[in-house]
């Protein structure tokens, strides 16, 4: 009996109520939730290490001490930040994928609602964590937050509750809330996780195209059990996520003098403290995940309107969508309006974020808002409703995505042209206009071709790879694993030579991140060799 068998028996892994997985689901898009969970766990672990050093009475100076003097302190701090970034991005991706798949429909409504609540909690936690550094950016972000709350007088009682004595330099409460919210996320996550395991991953639309999209007990029994294949696959994804979380910020730490527009996204280092003379010379910006809110605040001086547009309406929509869209259909073209809303939400989110980044705090007159927000709405609605109702009429996800990006760039450049007409903006606009037309045209043949296809009988079954080809690939994978092994040993040896503090110390994060990525890749190759048929 092997070690794996031993664990399997002792831990009762066969009896776990975990979802068994069909072969076609071993693709990353079915595992986005695992990626979010992976980054959550990373962020919690690194956060606990930071907690050993952070002093809420000296937020800025203890952060500086952490970066400068604690062994590998900056590695942990920067990757904590990027762990949170990864979690936010992946949570959005996870959410929108499930949105377009109709995964919020029966019986997964609660699962969806829990997810939306977790997204809100995550953004809140991230904001509080950002405030803990106490640099000029954090204090100005808190100022803005406090400003929004106080402008609704009946809400101002919340300020001492949330921020405590923040302005006097005591971040104790912010730290406490940061941790409390994380604990809440943890609890909701457990619920979310077990419910997800209970209903199973959202099946492909080819298999189940109507809600309730769940496999029956009999179908389910034939799939791969959780142990060991799912475990192997999940481990590979988690290590890759961790690897990139470590690798990216620690590499970015070596970039200096980024253009201002890139700072909110790419600079992991704290800004100067608010009371330093240098603070007067920096442009303050909120964390990138709140840039969109920051921009909406420039649209209106009425805070209630601001909260309605920026927070309440989208949130209520997301929470209620399982009860609004009650048809059993999962197919996008049978849910046109909801598809359009989804595309628009993504477009507006990205658009407003970029806008907030480019023109922070610049007030925007109504006509410009219309110019920016109307075209995507028209394009999306027209696009979604003009696609014919025949089978598979909606273009491939990539086609839709390309179209989306093109329309986004198109309308963005149009605005830039209107706001500041010049030869450059005109050229850029022309370029994106062509791109947009091409993308729009590329959708049309899809629609037409599909109509033709639908008259034919059954489409050809997908030709599987010839065994010889697969065999060659598997051999290649084996060679790769061996190479990864050698490289990881070299890197591990190098890790021992990196100084614990100072300029070179971030190389530790880079190298360790690389090893994690290689480990993840090796496990994934192993999965390929052993399980791929």
């Amino acid at each position, binding site marked *: 009996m092997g070690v794996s068998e031993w664990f399997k028996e002792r831990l009762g892994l066969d009896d776990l109520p975990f979802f068994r997985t069909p072969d076609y689901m071993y693709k990353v898009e079915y595992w986005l939730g695992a990626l979010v969970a992976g980054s959550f766990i990373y962020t919690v672990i690194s956060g606990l290490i930071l907690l050993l050093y952070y002093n809420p009475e000296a937020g800025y100076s203890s952060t500086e*001490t952490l970066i400068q003097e604690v062994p590998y302190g900056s590695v942990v701090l920067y990757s904590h930040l990027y762990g949170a970034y990864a979690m936010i991005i992946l949570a959005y991706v996870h959410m929108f994928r499930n949105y377009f798949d109709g995964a919020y429909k029966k019986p997964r409504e609660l699962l969806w609602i829990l997810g939306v609540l977790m997204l809100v909690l995550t953004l809140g936690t991230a904001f509080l964590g950002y405030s803990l550094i106490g640099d000029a950016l954090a204090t100005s972000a808190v100022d803005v937050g406090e400003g929004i709350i106080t402008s609704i007088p009946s809400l101002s009682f919340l300020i001492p509750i949330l921020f405590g004595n923040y302005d006097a*330099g005591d971040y104790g409460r912010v730290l406490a809330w940061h941790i409390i919210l994380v604990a809440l996320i943890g609890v909701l996550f457990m619920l979310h996780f077990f419910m997800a395991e209970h209903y199973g991953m959202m099946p492909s639309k080819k298999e189940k195209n109507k809600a309730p999209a769940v496999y029956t007990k009999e179908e389910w029994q034939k799939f791969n059990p959780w142990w060991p294949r799912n475990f192997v696959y999940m481990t590979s994804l988690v290590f890759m996520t961790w690897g990139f979380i470590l690798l990216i910020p620690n590499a970015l730490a070596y970039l200096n003098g980024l253009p201002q527009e890139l700072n909110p996204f790419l600079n992991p280092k704290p800004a100067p403290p608010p009371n330093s003379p240098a603070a007067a010379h920096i442009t303050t910006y909120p964390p990138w995940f709140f840039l969109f809110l920051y921009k909406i605040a420039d649209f209106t001086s009425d805070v209630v309107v601001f909260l309605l547009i920026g927070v309440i309406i989208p949130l209520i929509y997301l929470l209620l969508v399982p009860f609004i869209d009650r048809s059993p259909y999962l197919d996008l073209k049978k849910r046109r309006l909801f598809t359009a809303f989804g595309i628009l939400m993504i477009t507006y989110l990205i658009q407003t974020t970029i806008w907030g980044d480019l023109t922070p705090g610049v007030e925007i007159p109504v006509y410009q808002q219309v110019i920016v927000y109307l075209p995507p709405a028209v394009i999306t609605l027209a696009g979604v409703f003009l696609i014919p109702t025949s089978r598979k009429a909606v273009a491939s996800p990539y086609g839709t995505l390309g179209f989306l990006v093109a329309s986004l760039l198109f309308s963005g450049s149009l605005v830039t042209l209107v706001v500041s007409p010049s030869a450059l903006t005109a050229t850029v606009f022309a370029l994106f206009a062509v791109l947009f037309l091409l993308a729009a045209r590329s959708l049309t043949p899809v629609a037409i071709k599909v109509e033709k296809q639908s008259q034919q009988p059954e489409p050809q079954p997908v030709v599987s790879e010839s065994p010889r080809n697969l065999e060659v690939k598997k051999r290649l994978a084996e060679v790769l694993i061996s190479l990864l*092994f050698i490289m990881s040993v070299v890197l591990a040896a190098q890790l021992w030579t990196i100084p614990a503090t100072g300029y070179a110390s971030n190389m530790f994060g880079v190298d360790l991140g690389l090893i994690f990525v290689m*480990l993840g890749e090796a496990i994934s190759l*192993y999965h390929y*060799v052993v399980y791929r048929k």
Partner: protein
Amino acid sequence: MIKFRLGKDEKEVLDYSNLTFFRKLASKIRDPRTKFDVKEFAKRGDDYLFNYVNKNVGSVDEKRRKFLKSLVFGIAAAAVVGIIPGVRVLVPPTITSVSGFPKSLLVDSSGNPIKASSLPVNSPVILLFEYPMTGEPNFLLNLGDSKGNPVEIPPTTVTIPQTGKTYQFPGGVGPNKSIVAYSAICQHLGCTPPYIHFYPPQYVSPAQLTASEPDQLSAEALLAAKQNHVPALIHCDCHGSTYDPYKGAAVLTGPTVRPLPAVLLEWDSTTDYLYAIGAIGVATYPNGANGVPSNDPTDDLSNSYGSPVGDKTTASGTENPFSS
């Protein structure tokens, strides 16, 4: 892939991997060690078969699988070995547990002790040394009158406007008793040189009213200098706080409500060396709770950020704010 040629249309009957799978399955079932229970199979059907297959028939042969597994575990081991030095993140940097102020010899940037008698009088160059902790700069000043002759700095009583309390500043040291040292972190909001620095007598003049940052003097500061007959000043350009270097860095103009803490110096007349031996006044900015600087200079020492400078500290300075 095994195919039967049926006219033009090729139809797949069985693919190669499935064929090998069936062969393996068949041999396993025949193998008495794996105990294929026919009765169970008849009873539970598919379920039993699937369990049996999962348990006994892998898709890749065992040797190859073991080899790959050990490589993967090898990489995992490398990751663990790599993380080991990182565990040091749990070890806090030397925690300051100084019970008192260290006695530190002031040395120049090449490590030679500074001679008190060779310190230039009223120098506009900002000369700084860290004390008692790293990251805490202090001015080293040899004060003179408006003609540039060193003047004796007598002991005085300094008042802390914030609290109304007072403390005794012991005066200057050195051959002319003209050498003093003060914290170079403004007690108002913590600006550091060059925003806060010493203005020698020739720069305490209306000409500085229009000078650019960080050499500007406010009208208020000039007036205070005149009224108190102070030839030279320490002035902070961030918000205009002014301190009197001749009177223990007492407050001349706000917004600061605390004097700069003074570093106690000792002069060894036989060697002409200078030592920093302690501090007096309030604690170095911003030590104390809630960002409000403390009134107790020893607060500095219980602070775990920064480490003590040890028995030597380097006083160096090349920056002359007025020459730029």
